């Protein structure tokens, strides 16, 4: 395995590790978003979906373990790359003018870390039930855990709504760069699908921001009610 260790320690290998783990996180983010859009189909079907996920048993724990692993690998590799990159220019320029890069590409470590902090909070809120414990134990009329009402009651709280809006925006800035960048890192480029490599990041970021913000805003504007 020493060859694998030297691969992930190389500049190209570390970037490819970021790309593969980042892609895994993006796929999760898409599935998670689609799950949340279920809020628009009403209490019954949303709770059925939550019930289905809860009932996966061993599979659920495998998925959680896998997700946690790629998260930790992505985070640690990202931080180590960001530090090495800052150290590679010990003396900064007095004047430096960028022409191609974007502010969101240059703040990947920052947006990543804020999103991480939010995800910890998000898990404490909706998975562990520590933030609003009173809303965490409702059952619906079929005796299922009432994820629907927890969602609605949660986002009736303005502070929670705003923290969520901010976090989703930062995640989408991270992905505006990341969701296209992984193709280049893995060497997947060709003039034929250049339009995808160029636009995948911003396009996916817009789709995700819309998809993630719709259900909480639906609650805020009373389109989704108890």
């Amino acid at each position: 395995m020493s060859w694998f260790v030297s691969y992930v320690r190389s500049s190209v290998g570390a970037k490819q590790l970021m790309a593969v783990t980042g892609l895994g996180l993006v796929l999760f983010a898409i599935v998670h978003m689609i799950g949340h859009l279920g809020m628009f189909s009403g209490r019954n079907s949303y709770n059925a979906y939550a019930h289905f996920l809860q009932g996966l048993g061993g599979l659920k724990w495998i998925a959680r373990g896998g997700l946690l692993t790629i998260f930790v690998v992505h985070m640690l590799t990202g931080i180590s790359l960001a530090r090495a990159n800052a150290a590679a220019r010990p003396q900064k320029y007095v004047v430096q003018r960028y022409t191609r890069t974007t502010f969101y590409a240059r703040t990947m470590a920052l947006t990543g870390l804020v999103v991480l902090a939010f995800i910890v909070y998000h898990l404490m809120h909706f998975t562990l039930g520590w933030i609003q414990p009173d809303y965490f134990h409702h059952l619906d009329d079929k005796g299922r855990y009432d994820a629907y009402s927890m969602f609605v009651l949660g986002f009736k709280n303005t502070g929670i709504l705003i923290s969520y809006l901010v976090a989703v925006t930062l995640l989408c800035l991270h992905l505006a760069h990341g969701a296209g960048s992984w193709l280049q890192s893995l060497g997947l480029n060709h003039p034929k699908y250049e339009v995808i490599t160029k636009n995948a990041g911003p396009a996916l970021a817009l789709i995700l921001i819309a998809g993630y913000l719709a259900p909480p805003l639906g609650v805020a504007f009373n389109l989704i009610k108890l």
Partner: protein
Amino acid sequence: MSDMNLTLHIWRQAKGTAAGAMKTYQVKGISEHASFLEMLDVLNEQLQEKGEEPVAFDSDCREGICGMCSLVINGRPHGPDAGTTTCQLHMRRFKNGDEIYVEPFRAGAFPVVRDLCVDRKAFDDIVAAGGYVTANVGSAPDANAVPIPKEQADRAFDAAACIGCGACVAACPNSSAMLFTAAKVAHLAHLPQGQPERLRRVKAMVTAMDAAGFGNCSNHYECEAACPKGISKDYIALMNRDYAKSVFVAKDAKAGSDGAG
């Protein structure tokens, strides 16, 4: 247009180990036809007349082909124009009364030797690690003895246009040398002569690049924008692809030496 007077802020540093600082100079009567380096020559004459140390900067061909000139001018390597080396940058690009900041290419792997001169030996080390083909040298082969499709030859030539100036490193927010290394990898990867050692080469050159202390690529593409020869970031994708192959596909993964790719 007439001659112009300029305020220059220039990085002065007596030697690599000394501390440096920006110093301000006035130059007068610069012709709009002068190149940026000729403007610095005028400054140096003025300094010498006053008994001051002239500003050290690199140049050689002064016709945009050797890659010796460097300088970050107002925050951009080789100055404001695309596809231009500092020696080909003309003063008509500036206005009378302008303030111009002139700094050396900045990277830990490019230590300052003096003032605006940096040591770009790290690039030589990358090329020495694999930027060649191992072939018996005899008399020159006949032209076209090895058939090469036109598109391949063009792509190889586009990569080979790299003059190794280091503007890619200077422009990169991470001081990464990926564009330079990729150009050297790609120019041989597009030619039949480069195939036998293709994967060994990419592995050795990336290893040398990492050892020199350059940063990692974050796909900002400032390198491509700064490159005076317009080397494409697509060569970086090719290098990424070949590097993964050298690790996961080459038979002798440890040495990465089974050339077949």
